[in-house]
């Protein structure tokens, strides 16, 4: 039993002390059994307080420490490190959450908040009194990384990791790499196109022996934990052999294909065959057969003997120490009839318009054989929704639209641009583009939040109407040859990665980081990082920055051959075990086995400390370290015993 415990109660600069009487808490616990020191502090996490704690621990030979402050998610690690610096084992530290679970939710009830804080601190003291020192376990680390998604974020992260000498498996679900940027063509604040950027990244990847790139590769299962993940990847065949080098014969074979389906690369505004190239951004440079639309008629195989419809899917088992997720985003797909989408012929999305501009010959722009002169852009489609679920701003679209419009005039000088906005958000240096557009005669309207613009189609004319903010709700209208819906970013649909890896999502349904500022690329699953737009809308530069941040974090997991892992594992009391096999059945990690003595034993480096084996034991022979019966019971007793 610890008898020299130090307790620190944090004001959090008012976050706690405005609602919880911290001095009263201090007084209430100071006389608790085993407490030697009880103090309050303005900022427990500040360096000066940390130093003070180290001094207290050393001078008073404290054997247990409790800090009552914010959520343990923020600073439990900080304070465990403090006690370690003072020579104490970090398991003799217990954290009490009196901010997120006391002062904030009970800000309406100061007396109740103070009372609850007292109980929580007392419970923490009860737990630390029983605490025992435990040493961390070491695991061998597989010095390899799985990067999921070969868009710009995933490719850049893979390249950086490989240059540090790390083996990288880069898997891409689609048959071609490049993600959205390959489709984006013109980019802002640079003359580099998306295709050029993707091409540079691809060239570097294929010339790098540390990177194994797999396309048509889908994660189907993942087991293990930080340091040692085993990922199962399904590889779909291309049905066109790599030895196929005669482009002319291949071309004939493609032309022989009787199937026509919408081409995803052009967001469905053109058609492709079931066997197809991915021009202009085809990496790897081999055609592929899309088996979902192929009828297996065999016409292409008659022309080209390098086509084999009987190729089988394969499975890879990859052993890696860490996983970096960069699965990107989907452009929002408007609902049927949303601003006339799919109902009025000349209403398309920004993604489609960008492709149209890219593949159309310079000169006169046409849409369905009609010349296009007036372009109307409707902003925030699928973003900042008043009624829908997408409350967030998609960040990239204002700039992308203005940039696309500006650059379109290089190729199609006759285009006039009308922007129906909800307030332009060209943040930072991108403001210059907005300025340039205004100067070049682009017309900007702004609608009220509760009064969006409307698209109407009458007498073969499409018009956009708006009650404009800048002219005091006066109704203005523009006749448009094409209406471009500026669609935002949404998380990838049919993305089963979060289910397989158990990654939590945020309120916006994108993957969630642990903390935007403290741990911005880490997830709650140790060893799995997130990068790029799968975490939230980002432009290219922001995606690359987040990818490199994730890469350096990942490298810190796999850069060394050993990792320290948590020793909070299950433990069997052999005398109590009657070997009934229930615990082995309950364990999801195969961490329990029958030893030579015929009783259950836990493999400590495999055990993840989930505790699923605890309640199933009929003889209560299993305890989880730091969550033992006596620890939990002591906390229950204290919490129950309100004074």
């Amino acid at each position, binding site marked *: 039993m610890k008898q020299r415990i130090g307790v620190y109660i944090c004001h959090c600069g008012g976050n706690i002390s405005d609602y919880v009487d911290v001095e009263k808490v201090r007084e209430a616990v100071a006389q608790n059994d085993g407490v030697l020191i009880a103090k309050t502090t303005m900022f427990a996490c500040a360096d000066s307080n940390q130093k003070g704690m180290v001094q207290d621990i050393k001078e008073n030979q404290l054997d247990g420490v409790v800090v009552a402050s914010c*959520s343990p998610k923020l600073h439990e690690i900080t304070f465990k490190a403090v006690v370690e610096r003072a020579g104490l084992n970090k398991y003799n530290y217990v954290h009490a959450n009196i901010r*997120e679970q006391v002062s904030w939710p009970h800000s309406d009830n100061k007396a109740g908040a103070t009372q609850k804080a007292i109980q929580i601190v007392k419970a923490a003291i009860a737990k630390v009194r029983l605490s025992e020192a435990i040493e961390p376990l070491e695991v061998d680390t597989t010095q390899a990384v799985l990067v999921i998604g070969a868009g710009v974020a995933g490719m850049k992260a893979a390249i950086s990791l490989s240059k540090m000498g790390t083996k990288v498996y880069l898997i891409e679900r689609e048959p071609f790499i490049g993600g959205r940027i390959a489709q984006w063509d013109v980019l802002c604040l640079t003359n580099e196109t998306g295709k050029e950027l993707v091409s540079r990244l691809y060239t570097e990847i294929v010339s790098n022996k540390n990177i194994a790139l797999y396309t048509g590769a889908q994660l189907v299962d993942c087991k293990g934990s930080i340091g040692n993940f085993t990922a199962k990847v399904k590889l779909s065949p291309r049905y066109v052999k790599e030895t196929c080098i005669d482009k002319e014969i291949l071309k004939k074979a493609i032309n022989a294909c009787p199937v026509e389906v919408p081409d995803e690369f052009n967001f469905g505004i053109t058609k492709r065959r079931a066997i197809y190239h991915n021009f202009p951004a085809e990496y790897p440079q081999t055609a592929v057969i899309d088996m979902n639309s192929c009828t297996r008629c065999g016409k292409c195989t008659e022309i080209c003997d390098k086509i084999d419809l009987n190729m089988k899917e394969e499975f890879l088992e990859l052993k890696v120490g860490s996983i970096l997720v960069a699965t990107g985003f989907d452009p929002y797909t408007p609902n049927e009839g949303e601003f006339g989408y799919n109902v009025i012929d000349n209403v398309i999305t920004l993604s489609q318009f960008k492709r149209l501009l890219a593949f159309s010959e310079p000169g006169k722009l046409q849409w369905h054989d009609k010349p296009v002169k007036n372009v109307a852009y409707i902003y925030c489609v699928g973003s900042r929704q008043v009624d829908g679920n997408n409350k967030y701003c998609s960040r990239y679209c204002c700039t992308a639209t203005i940039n696309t419009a500006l650059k379109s005039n290089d190729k199609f000088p006759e285009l006039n641009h009308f922007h129906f906005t909800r307030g332009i958000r060209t943040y930072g240096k991108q403001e210059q583009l907005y300025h340039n557009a205004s100067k070049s005669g682009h017309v900007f309207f702004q609608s009220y939040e509760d009064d969006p613009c409307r698209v109407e189609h009458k007498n073969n004319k499409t018009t956009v109407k708006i009650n404009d903010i800048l002219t005091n709700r006066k109704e203005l209208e523009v006749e448009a040859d094409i209406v471009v819906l500026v669609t935002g970013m949404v998380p990838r649909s049919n993305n089963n990665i979060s289910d397989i890896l158990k990654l939590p999502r945020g309120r916006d349904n994108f993957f969630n980081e642990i903390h935007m500022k403290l741990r911005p690329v880490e997830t709650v699953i140790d060893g799995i990082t997130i990068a790029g737009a799968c975490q939230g809308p980002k432009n290219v530069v922001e995606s690359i920055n987040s990818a490199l941040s994730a890469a350096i974090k990942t490298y810190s997991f796999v850069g060394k051959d050993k990792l320290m892992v948590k020793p909070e594992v299950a433990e069997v009391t052999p005398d109590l075990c009657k070997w009934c096999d229930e615990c082995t059945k309950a364990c999801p*990690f195969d961490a329990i086995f029958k030893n030579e003595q015929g009783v259950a034993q836990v493999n400590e480096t495999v055990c993840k400390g989930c*505790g699923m084996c605890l309640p199933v034991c009929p003889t209560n022979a299993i305890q989880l370290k730091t969550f033992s019966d006596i620890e939990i019971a002591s906390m*229950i007793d204290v919490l129950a015993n309100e004074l």
Partner: protein
Amino acid sequence: MSTSENPRILVFSTVKISDPAIDMAGLLKLHYSSKVYTISVPCSSAVKPRWILRALEKDFDGVFIAADGTDCPYGESCTEKTGEIVKKTHQLMKERNIDPIRLKMAAICSVCSEPFIKQINNFSNTLLNLKTKE
């Protein structure tokens, strides 16, 4: 069972899933009864029936398991296993003449702050009704 004001509830929450939701409830300043206490465990299927019984036999009016549900980082079996624990404990409660209504379980995902408040308020009301009946 105590009879003063709000029922006293012990929540078994989980470190990675339901705790963040309960923390976020605080962050969003969503209010609930200050008689609600949490003990967080790695996974909801690690809660031993004896812990629940102890809480109910001491001074808690109710025990709420904020389960990981399908979000459990340790695997999908969690939902079923937590359900099993509740079933087993309900049985033990009956044997001890404790109203099974005093143990409740619901899945609370990592952003389920509002559902958490709703569940806790409903549970509070149930326990309050139980108290007045007694």
